[in-house]
């Protein structure tokens, strides 16, 4: 697969195409699913959320272009150590403010006056960068790998622990991502099993604690409630009026070919049609076939990342791409899984499609990193071309064998 180099859209061209397709779909589906929201929050101005989404997608593309054109991958390795402590600091501040009762809502968002964002978003990316850096530096001996494991797991526990207090699913998602990175980074299976056991103990502990201690933080009760409803069934589902039921109804009503753009009914009575359940609305409007194709777009993204990882000549970029890709694809899978009722209800947006604000910008930073690495690969390949041709089989060919 020979890909020519664009002058501006540097990096993996397939990935750029995937992103553009996702953007197009995002605009269509955000416009049609925010109708009810527009009447609730923007006094009936149905253009409001579309324009907002155009703005953030545009800003996201701008950010990615700056990253691939002007920033070197090495910068992220240097930044990793700094960012992780900033993240921990911000998470601590948010947590303290939350328990001091100074934050409204779920206590996930930090408002700095000029900008408001979720510190967890920053923490996700910085922890992945940090993990990639540690794994990359310690691939030599078993002793080094053990040291790497201890460093990574200690930072992960702190960050995921802080996120857990306000948002269980993001903490679990990040934890799973780091776990996958360590798995790919040749950390001994023995350690990984210990981690799994510990993780399960904590979730089970939280589930039981919710019963024993009614005063425990509210999120623990939310987690328990959702797990209960998923296992035992929601009492409201008899009437078919839970969000999960609406999602299934949307998928059912969509059929093979969908109702057509803008014809979704279900989105008007669902509370989170434009983010957590957006996949269901995609199927309702565009049908099963497009729905499966959207899923394949994420898998294509995943496979292109595998290619980028394999072509990477250095370890940090390879692990960085692995981590960011796994994070985004997990997120997509969770969203689709929730919409289809495979997973318990939880709030993860569909990357690059769901209505987003600052979180969309963090997603574009992740894509920007991946594209930067692939651009770095292309430069490296050009300079090393003869050697590659003689000594190595084509990775893509090998992969599809």
């Amino acid at each position, binding site marked *: 697969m020979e890909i020519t180099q664009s002058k501006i859209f540097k990096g993996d061209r397939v990935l750029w195409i995937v992103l553009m397709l996702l953007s197009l779909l995002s605009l269509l589906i955000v416009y049609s699913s925010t109708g009810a929201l527009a009447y609730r929050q923007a006094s009936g101005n149905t253009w409001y959320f579309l324009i907002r989404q155009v703005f953030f997608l545009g800003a996201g593309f701008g950010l990615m272009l700056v990253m691939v054109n002007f920033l070197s991958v090495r910068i992220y390795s240097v930044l990793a150590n700094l960012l992780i402590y900033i993240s921990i600091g911000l998470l601590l501040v948010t947590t303290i403010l939350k328990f001091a009762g100074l934050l409204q809502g779920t206590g996930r968002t930090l408002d700095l006056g000029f900008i408001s964002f979720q510190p967890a978003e920053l923490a996700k990316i910085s922890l992945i960068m940090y993990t990639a850096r540690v794994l990359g530096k310690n691939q030599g001996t078993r002793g080094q790998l053990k040291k790497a494991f201890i460093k990574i797991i200690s930072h992960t526990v702190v960050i995921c622990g802080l996120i857990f207090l306000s948002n269980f699913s993001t903490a679990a998602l990040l934890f799973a991502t780091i776990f*996958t990175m360590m*798995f*790919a980074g*040749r950390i001994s299976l023995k350690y990984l099993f210990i981690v799994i056991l510990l993780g399960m103990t904590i979730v089970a502990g939280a589930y039981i604690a919710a019963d024993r201690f009614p005063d425990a933080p509210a999120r623990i009760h939310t987690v328990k409630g959702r797990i209960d409803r998923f296992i035992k069934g929601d009492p409201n589902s008899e*009437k*078919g*009026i839970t969000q999960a*039921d*609406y999602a*299934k*109804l949307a*998928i*059912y*009503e*969509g*059929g*093979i070919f969908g109702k057509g753009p803008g014809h979704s*009914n279900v989105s*008007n*009575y669902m509370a989170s049609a434009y983010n957590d359940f957006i996949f269901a609305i995609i*199927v309702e409007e565009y049908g*099963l076939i497009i*729905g*499966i194709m959207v*899923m*394949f777009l994420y*898998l294509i993204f*995943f*496979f292109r990342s*595998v290619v980028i*990882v394999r072509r990477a000549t250095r370890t940090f970029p390879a692990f960085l791409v692995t981590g960011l890709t*796994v994070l985004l*694809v997990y997120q997509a*899978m969770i969203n*689709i*899984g929730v919409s*289809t*009722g*495979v997973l318990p209800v939880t709030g993860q947006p569909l990357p690059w499609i769901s209505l987003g604000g600052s979180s969309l910008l963090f997603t574009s930073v992740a894509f920007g990193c991946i594209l930067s690495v692939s651009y770095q690969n292309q430069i490296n390949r050009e300079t090393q071309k003869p050697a590659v041709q003689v000594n190595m089989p084509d990775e893509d060919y090998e992969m599809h064998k």
Partner: protein
Amino acid sequence: MDTFSKRNYIIIGIFILTGLVFVIRLFSIQILDPVYKVYATNNVLREVVQYPARGLIYDRNDNLLVYNKPAYDLMITPREMADFDTMYLCNLLDVSKDEIIRNIELAKDYSYYKPSVLVKQIPPETYAILQELIYKYNGFHTQSRTLREYVYSAAAHLLGYVGEVSREDMDRESYYSMGDYIGQSGIEKTYESWLRGKKGINKYLVDVHNRIKTSFLDGEENIPPVTGSNLTSTLDIDLQLYAETLLQNKRGSVVAIEPSTGEILALASAPAYHPGLLAGRIRSRNYSMLLSDTLKPLFNRALQAEYPPGSTFKVLNVLVGLQVGAIGTDTYFSCSGPASYPIRCTHDHVSPLNAVQAIRESCNPFMWNTFRSILYKYETSAEGYNIWRDHVMNFGIGRRLGIDINGESAGSLPNESYYNNIYGKGHWNAMTVRSLAIGQGELGITPLQLANYAAAVANRGYYYPPHVIKSIDMGEIDNTFRIRKYVGISTEYFEPAVQGMEDAVRPGALSHIPGIAVCGKTGTAENPHGSDHSVFMAFAPKDDPMIAISVYIENGVWGARYAAPIASLIIEKYLTDSISDNRKWLESRMIEANLLNPYQPK
């Protein structure tokens, strides 16, 4: 890197497997699982708002004034709408075809599957016919609302009206949503939070076609509406009707207050209109009609019109003079009649004369001398003026009294700086502002303020803030209406003033009622746009006053010509419940008088 590669295949494998699981799941939802077919026809919770009945309004004698009558909104759900007989519907509901078409377009713009209002406030008679036919009209249904209905054609300004909420209302209070009704003026506005009650919610399950299938959880979660509280007004509807009858074909106002409580007994502004004109579908049409009427029926003269008080103000000047010691009860001033300077007197009376006689004769030179003495008693005219002004203000003049209906105007009582600006600081004195001595000049006073001032004199030194609501079911009226406001004049000084007022209504005057001691003062307010206005303020009986009243009749030429007789008729009606036979001729003369032409013979 062997293990590394193998582990990567595991990760890839997991993702492919997840993808497969999702695809299978999607298929199963769409094709295999029948349960969602049931959901497809039985899926939406619809909350239908239940509108409470608005509270009723009674008068002080428990006569019902305002109640509700049912009305119906015709609703449309564009998605279910089929072709229908537009002309028949238009004729039945008395709306134009264009309006129907425009409203259908608006409804489509809003939503295809949510109902919108097509025609508002259909009367029950039409609704009965409509209900028989509605099965023919797909996508149409009705929703019940209530409309205000009025027992008497009276007190429109005071009762106020109800209209649809504006965007500002909704922004201010989240209780309201589009299409709700809210009190727009009068009692309806001030007591909105009591009258409106609380909306309820009925929850229904509806299918995809928005048809109601069943009550959600058998109505367990329904919230019943709470009916609004009933109000008892301070109004005496018989007196109000009588006042409005006397005011017919005139411009002017009548305000009657019970001095011992501050309760408004009658508050009439003429020309008036039927309160029902501003209820229901005809409201916007009638509102613009009333707005464009040159007689300004929407203008509530009783609260909003500012007139010079004229000679009625003289009682107040004498009271202030006595209080600050500028004059005494034994002070005599002489009057040279038409030759008096600086203010002439045309009232032809004894001279010299004291306070009681001066009020009786409405003597201008006496008032000028009193006013001058007040101002010159202090170091500077400005200081004297400020002390005089504070006393006047204590009577509720030049500021809002805080009556519990909207639109009250403050009147005008200029402060020191007003004159400083015109004449320069230190360059004006009693001579400069002499018109104030006889209630002319820059003074502006509303009929409500005049009546309140009469009440303060009747109480010999205090008043209760005037108000129109006596009691609220399950509630309390504002406590400020129960607190006496003292005007800062000693009780003893009221005796000469009251005596003067009693003497002014001497036997032979049109305002004299045999057997009732009426204390009153006429006034004539200068009017540059036509004949002068006729003014009268009074209270009765002299000892133990039951009613204080102010009457303004625009272009009534002299206070004694119209305002005084009308006030005396209202007092007689209130105190004896009828008009004695030998005053019937006066009653019919007042009712028949037509003063709509602003130029009347002297």
